[in-house]
């Protein structure tokens, strides 16, 4: 490992110091540094105790080199105790990714650590989402081959990353995609893509069960198409018997069905998108002994609206890969400028609805755990429902508002695990954007959430000032004022200058998606100080 690393660094130095000469003229380098640091404090009132080691830090350093079709790169990660909310198995410093890749018009060969996705990711997806602590890159070989434009073939082999190590499980797979129809004329698109994937995971089992499935195979078939304003797609996944820590080692086959369709007016005045998905023993693990999301080699995210408000993130849907059925509907209407409902600047109305239930199933005493005979049947147990209405309206050149109404149902007993009961919540959010002299902006976000149980009602407020030199100042607070009367406040600044950005904040933060300082990022919970710095080179 060290030899690879030193060779790479030495080569990059040679490239740098020989800049503009011969071979190195075509050489291109880029890199980045990201460091997220937190210092924790006790909060005696909230009974939140800081960890023994007060300082935590996640640092990522990447470098990529390119010479024509040849690329190589490395990524270091350093955890001086991982930030709270990240798995503690992220520890120490390590070169976690190194690769070399050659690409031309027909072939793409990737040796080392790679990311790849087959279809919608339901059968295989290797990806990185640093802010959530997810990285399941595969260490091995990936090949993409396209003998002609309408045919794409992918093949992969290797071991997925699990925290700072490699999974004991090995993955091999292939994907084929054929596009028999691919026409675009006068703004009209006619497209049809048909695809199929196969993925196998093998991990040796040393226990006493002679029938334990060491090898799990998954097969998928899919279609995707568009006929002018109308789009449609779907994927069906069948998985052989898989037993793992997450499903309590039941020996059950897996099934995923995903369907999507939509229509959008070519002048963008109105549009609708509908999605349906059914999951049954759907989590495909690279390591059957791991419960962590990072150990999955497929991707079955919650198909619900990704909330960007302070309070709506308190009750997010948490998918149930063991068994879930439901879908999401999106509808929008745009009233044009200079119409009675559009006003001088136009009005946008965005409606989103999602609803998920457990499967209609019967428990069995065989090793299968449960059976669910009907494919399209909603179980009696309601898991999550979410209705969102957003009205986006510009009133003057310098003043714009977003009014959001959310009504949700959250089965806390199942989604959080415990005898909690159901949560029903209604949320109203007003967002105001005020521009001053074209360059300064004041953003004001006020929210209130009515909740029938748990921590009862919440209120939230966020203000942010943006200056033309790249500086943003922000203050936010959210409080469960009827019960614990805790204040989750956050005050800080962010400064962005071209390739660099620094953000310093202090307070008590809940985990969730936070949009301040000109960016959006997922933040872990903490009480204390947080310093983030990013640099691109």
């Amino acid at each position: 490992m060290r030899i690879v690393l030193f060779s790479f660094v030495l080569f990059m130095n040679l490239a740098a110091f020989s800049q503009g000469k011969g071979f190195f003229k075509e050489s291109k380098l880029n890199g980045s540094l990201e460091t997220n640091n937190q210092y924790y404090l006790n909060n005696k009132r909230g009974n939140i105790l800081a960890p023994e080691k007060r300082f935590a830090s996640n640092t990522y350093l990447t470098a990529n080199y390119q010479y024509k079709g040849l690329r190589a790169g490395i990524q270091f990660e350093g955890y001086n105790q991982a930030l709270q909310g990240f798995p503690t198995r992220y520890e120490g410093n390590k070169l976690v990714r190194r690769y070399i890749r050659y690409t031309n018009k027909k072939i793409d060969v990737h040796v080392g650590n790679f990311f790849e996705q087959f279809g919608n990711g339901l059968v295989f997806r290797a990806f990185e989402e640093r802010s959530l602590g997810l990285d399941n890159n595969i260490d091995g070989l990936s090949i993409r081959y396209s003998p002609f434009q309408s045919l794409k073939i992918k093949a992969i082999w290797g071991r997925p990353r699990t925290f700072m190590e490699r999974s004991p499980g090995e993955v091999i797979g292939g994907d084929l995609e054929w596009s028999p129809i691919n026409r675009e004329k006068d703004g009209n698109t006619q497209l049809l893509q048909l695809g199929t994937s196969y993925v196998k995971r093998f991990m040796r089992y040393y226990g006493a069960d002679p029938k334990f499935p060491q090898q799990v195979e998954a097969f998928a078939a899919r279609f995707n198409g568009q006929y002018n304003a109308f789009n449609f797609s779907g994927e069906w996944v069948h998985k052989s018997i898989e037993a793992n820590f997450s499903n309590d080692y039941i020996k059950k086959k897996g099934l995923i069905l995903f369907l999507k369709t939509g229509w959008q007016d070519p002048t963008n005045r109105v549009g609708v998108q509908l999605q349906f998905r059914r999951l049954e023993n759907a989590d495909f693990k690279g390591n059957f002994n791991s419960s962590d999301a990072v150990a999955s080699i497929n991707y079955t995210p919650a198909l619900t609206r990704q909330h960007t408000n302070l309070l709506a993130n308190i009750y997010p849907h948490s998918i149930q890969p063991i068994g879930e059925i439901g879908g999401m509907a999106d509808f929008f209407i745009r009233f044009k400028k200079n119409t009675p409902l559009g006003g001088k600047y136009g009005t946008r109305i965005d409606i989103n609805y999602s609803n998920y239930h457990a499967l209609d199933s019967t428990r069995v005493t065989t090793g299968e755990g449960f059976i669910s005979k009907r494919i399209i049947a909603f179980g009696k147990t309601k898991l999550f429902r979410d209705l969102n209405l957003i009205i986006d309206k510009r009133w003057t050149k310098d003043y714009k508002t977003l009014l959001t109404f959310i009504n949700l149902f959250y089965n806390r007993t199942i989604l959080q695990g415990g005898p909690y009961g159901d949560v029903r919540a209604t949320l109203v959010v007003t967002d105001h954007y005020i521009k001053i002299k074209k360059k300064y902006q004041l953003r004001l976000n006020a929210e209130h959430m009515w909740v029938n149980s748990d921590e009862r009602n919440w209120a939230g407020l966020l203000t942010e000032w943006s200056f033309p030199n790249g500086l943003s100042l922000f203050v936010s607070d959210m409080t469960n004022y009827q019960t614990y009367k805790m204040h989750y406040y956050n005050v800080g600044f962010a400064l962005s200058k071209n390739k660099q950005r620094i953000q310093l904040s202090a307070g008590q933060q809940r985990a969730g998606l936070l949009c301040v300082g000109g960016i959006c990022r997922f933040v872990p919970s903490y009480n204390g100080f947080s310093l983030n710095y990013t640099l691109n080179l």
Partner: protein
Amino acid sequence: MRVLLFLFLFTPLTLLAQEKLPAVVIKSIAGKELNTAVFQNSDVPLVISFWATWCKPCLQELDAFNDLTETWKKETPARIIAISIDDSRTASGIKKTAGLHDWSFEVFWDENQDLKRALNISLIPHTLVIDRNGVIVKRYTAYVPGNEEKILSLLKTL
């Protein structure tokens, strides 16, 4: 030792950081593949903005570009390209968001974030200004109101 290695790694980066847009496969909203090599030797400057349906500052930035489209057309031949990094969780919202905001520029999809990773982008919005030779001449990390005016001034010189 690690500090030395760090310095040794970053020295060449600072010296040789003249960056071109890498050739990576991305998709149209419909799902049709496209290699970004086609943007490498564009005969006009490019503005490439990375965004997601759930990123409020991204939408604000792209709306600001959209509002200035007519002004930009008069002053520069530059082409604006918006590349979504939404994954399959929120991907159905890409077409909807582009329609709801009635963006007049092209929208593409970096499905598994291959292009984002090749450019070492960790936060969005992230905007690149690329000259006629395909060289990235400026990066903007985060959206600050007024960035669109700075970008327009820069484009006039390219």
